[in-house]
């Protein structure tokens, strides 16, 4: 994939995201000119980019969407739910194509048909242009009559389109019943249409005995497909605007997809401009200038602007002579200005044609950003992490100098340098981590759309409230929160939120509030997903777990409500009595827990019957360095992630009770079993002699506390945790490795998996 394509894919995804956000906001917050403008521009830019990378199907579709947005912007079309749904569908389609293009470099073979179908859908929402034109009903699909007419007369249409590539319109004319008395002859109007393609005359209420036909009452519906221009058609039907609907069906005809010459010319010119801006170096650069100049000159000449064509040709020649595209770009900019009255000098792409002039356009500001592949930043983060670890070795070195060589001065000097390096390394590490910081709102991005679509499908009323979106969070964390959040929102909508009728009956507002709130607590981010729905019944969870055989019934009986709720995170449990396509396949909460666990986070859930449910995700702000505890066990050293450790306790032997085969002790009114880490890991070697006090670390796994006995705690360190690699990558029980200051490799245990 060449750089142009890569840039296209990245930009397209951004624009799709942005337009989706704006569309949802438009629906939620109502009409705002600025927002419509942004949406329009997003579609416009997408269309242009699609043309640039030569994806005609995508261009065609986006062109229709752009027209629709233009109609909304001009106030000719209301941005109702139908229009917004359609625009979102269009973005979905485009997004799929972008994915396909990213993967395969081409659009799937079905793209043409998909484009035509989507274009028809979009165009069906388009009101006819021009103030005097009769109205199509806004917000409708392509009307049944039009599709039927097209279907019936497809042969004729296709045949004639070759002869008449200009715009094609479907016309539906339903004369008033009393029109004959007014001296009207409806067919006479049709006869005036100059470029006929097909006519279909039918009785409105087909059937009925002939004897009941009133010959003086017009019961006909006249359907036609015609070429010509809309003004002409509108003029013919000017006296019966309420009875006529004219729909643009030019999308049917591939050749007629760009009927608007002016737009076409501008599009071509704009494409060349972008092409020139991208191609700022390379051997074929001069050739590209020449080609661009020729294409632009031809395009404007087609629009009968010889003056502009001359301007371009001269500028092109000068640019080739100077081997510098600036002159041509300036001329193209002027051409675009001339083609579009009222257009700003530069639309803010900030290329050479902008001449360095400051502009207020947001796109220009956006250009100050540097787009960097995430993997490069990740590499930097790892390097900085290594540096942080390496500086630990200075302390080790300083100690050796003092203990082995007895040189206190040198030792002190090394320590002094170490402090400086410490500071720098810390700053650098922080700064580099900052590179990866993004607002956590990025993880919320798909949720408004999801909420909108799901609540409609489930016939529930839900308002999504998000707070704290701007909280900066490591991109790696944000990426991994995405899936859990989608699950949680789905669950809340499907299981938590009641139907409007149920809510009314419960004395609640019909519209449920689903709150997503992110906040920072020290070096952790807490994301809460809160609904005000029916809450979760712990007993129902318990029953389900029993039915599914997840737990024996006596074990269930012993559980507290909180522990029952904890079962929701078990694999294979779903409380929905019926499996829906929304959620309830028994996956979900366990996935949430797994994903959050993987980034060193915790999930907890609180619920109150009839009041709602809150799921709390507590995750680290960044996952680059982890704090570990270095422990010793059976003569070996291991690391244990600090976030797995609830507490460390020294248990005197008199507190230890023998419970069947196990030992345990009472910690804050709960019996906590003690396991030996050496036994759990089958480590050879003798146990440390039983002393008075035994050292355990308490681990919470799956809602149960377990004390793991170790021999000693050595240290607490910040390390870069690297996943196990190669043959060991699947070794169970290990979270990864960390490099220590003295160069030793420390194995970091995944204690939770060892315990389970």
């Amino acid at each position, binding site marked *: 994939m060449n750089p142009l394509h890569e840039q296209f894919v990245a930009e397209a995804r951004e624009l799709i995201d942005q337009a989706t956000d704006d569309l949802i906001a438009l629906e939620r917050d109502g009409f705002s000119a600025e927002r419509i403008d942004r949406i329009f521009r997003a579609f416009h830019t997408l269309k242009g980019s699609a043309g640039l990378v030569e994806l005609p199907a995508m261009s065609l579709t986006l062109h229709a969407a752009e027209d629709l947005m233009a109609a909304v912007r001009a106030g000719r079309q209301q941005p109702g739910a139908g229009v917004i749904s359609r625009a979102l569908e269009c973005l979905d389609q485009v997004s799929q194509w972008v994915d396909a293009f990213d993967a395969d470099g081409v659009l799937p073979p079905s793209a043409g048909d998909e484009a035509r179908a989507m274009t028809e859908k979009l165009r069906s929402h388009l009101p006819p242009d021009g103030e005097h034109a009769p109205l199509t009903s806004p917000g409708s699909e392509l009307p049944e009559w039009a599709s039927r007419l097209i279907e019936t007369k497809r042969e004729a249409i296709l045949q004639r389109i070759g002869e008449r590539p200009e715009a094609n319109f479907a016309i539906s004319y339903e*004369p008033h019943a009393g029109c*004959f008395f007014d001296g*009207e*002859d*409806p*067919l*006479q109007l*049709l*006869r005036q249409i100059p470029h*006929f393609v*097909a*006519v279909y*005359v*039918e*009785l409105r209420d087909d059937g009925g005995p*002939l*004897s009941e*036909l009133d*010959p*003086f009452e*017009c*019961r*006909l519906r006249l359907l036609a497909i015609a070429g010509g221009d809309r003004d002409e058609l509108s003029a013919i039907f000017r006296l019966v605007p309420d009875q006529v609907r004219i729909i643009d069906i030019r999308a049917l005809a591939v050749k007629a997809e760009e009927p608007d010459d002016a737009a076409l010319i501008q599009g071509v010119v704009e494409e060349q401009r972008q092409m020139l801006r991208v191609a700022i170096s390379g051997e074929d650069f001069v050739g590209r200038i020449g080609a661009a100049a020729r294409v632009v000159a031809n395009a404007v000449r087609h629009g009968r602007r010889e003056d502009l064509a001359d301007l371009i040709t001269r500028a092109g020649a000068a640019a080739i002579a100077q081997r510098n595209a600036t002159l041509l770009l300036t001329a193209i900019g002027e051409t675009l200005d001339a083609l579009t009255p009222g257009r700003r000098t530069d639309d803010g792409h900030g290329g050479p044609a902008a001449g360095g002039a400051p502009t207020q356009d947001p796109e220009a500001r956006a250009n100050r950003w540097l787009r960097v592949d995430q993997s490069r930043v990740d590499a930097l983060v790892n390097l900085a992490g290594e540096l942080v670890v390496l500086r630990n070795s200075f302390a080790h070195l300083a100690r050796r100098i003092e203990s082995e060589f007895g040189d206190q001065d040198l030792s002190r000097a090394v320590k002094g340098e170490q402090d400086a390096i410490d500071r720098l390394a810390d700053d650098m590490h922080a700064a580099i981590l900052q590179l990866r910081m993004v607002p956590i709102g990025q993880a919320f991005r798909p949720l408004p759309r999801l909420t909108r679509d799901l609540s409609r499908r489930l016939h529930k009323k839900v308002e999504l409230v998000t707070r704290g979106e701007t909280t900066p969070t490591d991109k790696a964390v944000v990426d991994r929160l995405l899936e859990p959040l989608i699950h949680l929102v789905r669950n809340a909508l499907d299981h938590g939120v009641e139907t409007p009728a149920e809510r009314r009956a419960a004395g609640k507002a019909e519209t449920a509030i689903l709150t997503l709130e992110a906040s920072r607590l020290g070096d952790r981010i807490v994301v809460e997903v809160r609904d005000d729905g029916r809450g979760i019944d712990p007993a129902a969870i318990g029953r389900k777990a029993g039915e599914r055989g997840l737990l024996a019934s006596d074990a269930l009986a012993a559980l507290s409500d909180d522990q029952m709720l904890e079962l929701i995170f078990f694999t294979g449990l779903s409380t929905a009595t019926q499996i829906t396509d929304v959620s309830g396949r028994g996956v979900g909460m366990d996935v949430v827990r797994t994903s959050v666990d993987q980034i060193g986070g915790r999930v907890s859930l609180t619920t109150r019957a009839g009041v709602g449910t809150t799921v709390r995700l507590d995750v680290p702000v960044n996952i680059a360095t982890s704090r570990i505890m270095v422990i010793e066990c059976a003569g070996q050293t291991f690391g244990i992630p600090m976030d797995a450790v609830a507490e460390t306790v020294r248990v005197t032997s008199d507190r230890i009770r023998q419970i069947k085969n196990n030992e345990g002790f009472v910690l804050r009114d709960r019996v906590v079993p003690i396991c030996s880490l050496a036994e759990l890991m089958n480590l050879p070697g003798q146990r440390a002699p039983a002393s008075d006090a035994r050292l355990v670390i308490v681990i919470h796994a799956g809602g149960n506390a377990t004390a793991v006995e170790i021999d000693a705690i050595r240290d607490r360190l910040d390390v870069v945790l690297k996943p196990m690699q190669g043959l060991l990558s699947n070794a169970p029980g290990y979270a990864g490795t960390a490099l220590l200051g003295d160069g030793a490799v420390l194995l970091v245990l995944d204690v939770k998996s060892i315990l389970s």
Partner: protein
Amino acid sequence: MTVRRQDNGAITLDGVCGVEDAEPLLQMLLATPEAPLDWTRCEHLHTAVVQVVLAAGPELVGQCGDPWVGQWITPTQR
């Protein structure tokens, strides 16, 4: 008279058939639904007449004399 009954029972449309021809045409077609309709000699058909033809769907004789109707409108027989 532009709408006429032939001796053989067939109905013919002649010349310019206006809105007033719709009623007699309908009556004739109601009286003899099987009668063929000869529209070769009509020159112009008013919408009301076309409506009766479409609704009754009689057996049509020859090409419609009104070229526009002949080209674009093809009634189906009932």
